[in-house]
């Protein structure tokens, strides 16, 4: 039941991302709510939990974009894994770390997405434009991270109380 609730929440997040979020474009970038949600889940519930939801959210994103199914899931997996690595090795209670992790994970997500498109023979943006978009998106997602984390703590409080999330 709880898993169905999270699937519904992720579906809503993805739908908001592809309908509402592009209206909030700043410097060519708009918030990647699915990525922010996956990072928040990973930070509160652990890396394996985060990676599982990264696949679900990523496939949903793939269904709303052009090209094959998989690249967004792959990119979100990289973001979740990096966040999990960060959370395991640094102070989990600090607010600064998830914010920096969100920026770093956005950069990892973007790099993997562009790399996957390149490997699959899909068109990729020029390097200069890609860099500009990555920087803008990293800052945007980092700014949203405290809000997402606060929401995730409320929604996921039983899991957050677990002694040692893996």
């Amino acid at each position, binding site marked *: 039941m709880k898993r169905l609730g999270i699937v519904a929440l992720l579906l809503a997040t993805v739908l908001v991302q592809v309908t509402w979020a592009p209206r909030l474009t700043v410097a060519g970038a708009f918030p*990647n709510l699915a990525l922010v949600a996956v990072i928040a889940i990973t930070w509160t519930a652990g890396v394996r939990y985060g990676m599982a939801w990264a696949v679900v959210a990523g496939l949903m994103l793939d269904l709303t974009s052009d090209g094959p199914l998989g690249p967004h899931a792959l990119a979100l997996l990289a973001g979740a894994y990096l966040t999990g690595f960060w959370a395991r090795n640094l102070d989990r209670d600090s607010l600064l770390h998830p914010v920096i992790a969100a920026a770093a994970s956005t950069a990892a997500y973007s790099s993997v997405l562009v790399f996957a498109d390149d490997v699959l023979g899909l068109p990729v943006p020029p390097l200069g434009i890609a860099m500009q978009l990555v920087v803008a998106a990293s800052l945007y997602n980092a700014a949203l991270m405290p809000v997402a984390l606060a929401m995730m703590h409320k929604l996921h409080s039983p899991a957050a109380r677990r002694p040692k999330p893996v």
Partner: protein
Amino acid sequence: MYGRSQSRSTGLFLTLCASMLLLAMVTEQTWAAGARGALKSYLAPVEAVMTQLAGNVDRVTAVFGDVSTLRAENQRLTAADQALRRQVVELNAAAKENATLRQALDFERSYGHRMVAAQIVGRGPDGFSRTLEVDRGTADGVKPGMIVTTGAGLVGRVQEAGPHGAIVQTLADPQSRVNVFLSTSGLQGTVTGGPAALQLEIDHSIGVTATSGEWALTSGVGGGYPRGLVVGELASVTHRDSSTSDQALVAWVNDPAAISLVLVITDFAPS
């Protein structure tokens, strides 16, 4: 214990990555395109509901901001109206002359196109591919490669189509390329997508320079787009004598965040 847990996570990560790569390679195949398009079409009705909801919320929130800006906007529109009246008079005169010349040359080319109206139900999930999702697909005669416009001008091209939905690559997409000519100087160039504005590279021509305020229209060169579709207005031009081309920023006639309805040209086949 800690190390084992980390290696288990890494193992899971690598397995999932391999699975997603495999899925991507399988669904990329041409024989899987139909199933992929059909799968994507299933999400289109849900996106349509969300887009409608987003539009309603926008309308409600816009009321507050509108009241304060309407007065300034009214003044600006009055000035613009006067300028447009003058242009209409000039264009009417030009149109009469144009019609006479066409008749004289027995110009039989038709500008009418068959079109399918489609509602935008979603937008691309990230800034790397600026796409729109529409609620019309192969069942409505929409096919990959078809040109998409609005009443204002060119929007882009259909990239992928399922039975009841299609994904449109817009001009703002960094991979988009459109050959254009300028309305006043007649110079030719190529418009490419960009994160903030459309970029135009204008080919040099002796004695002619592009100026801000000129309109960029599709030239039809290359056969990718029909000639004469409005792309946008030149916002700024950077001229360099040392270069073989000038750079310009184009204010696109369509705001991708604001369009809700598009027209798919179904009878133009790009070469």
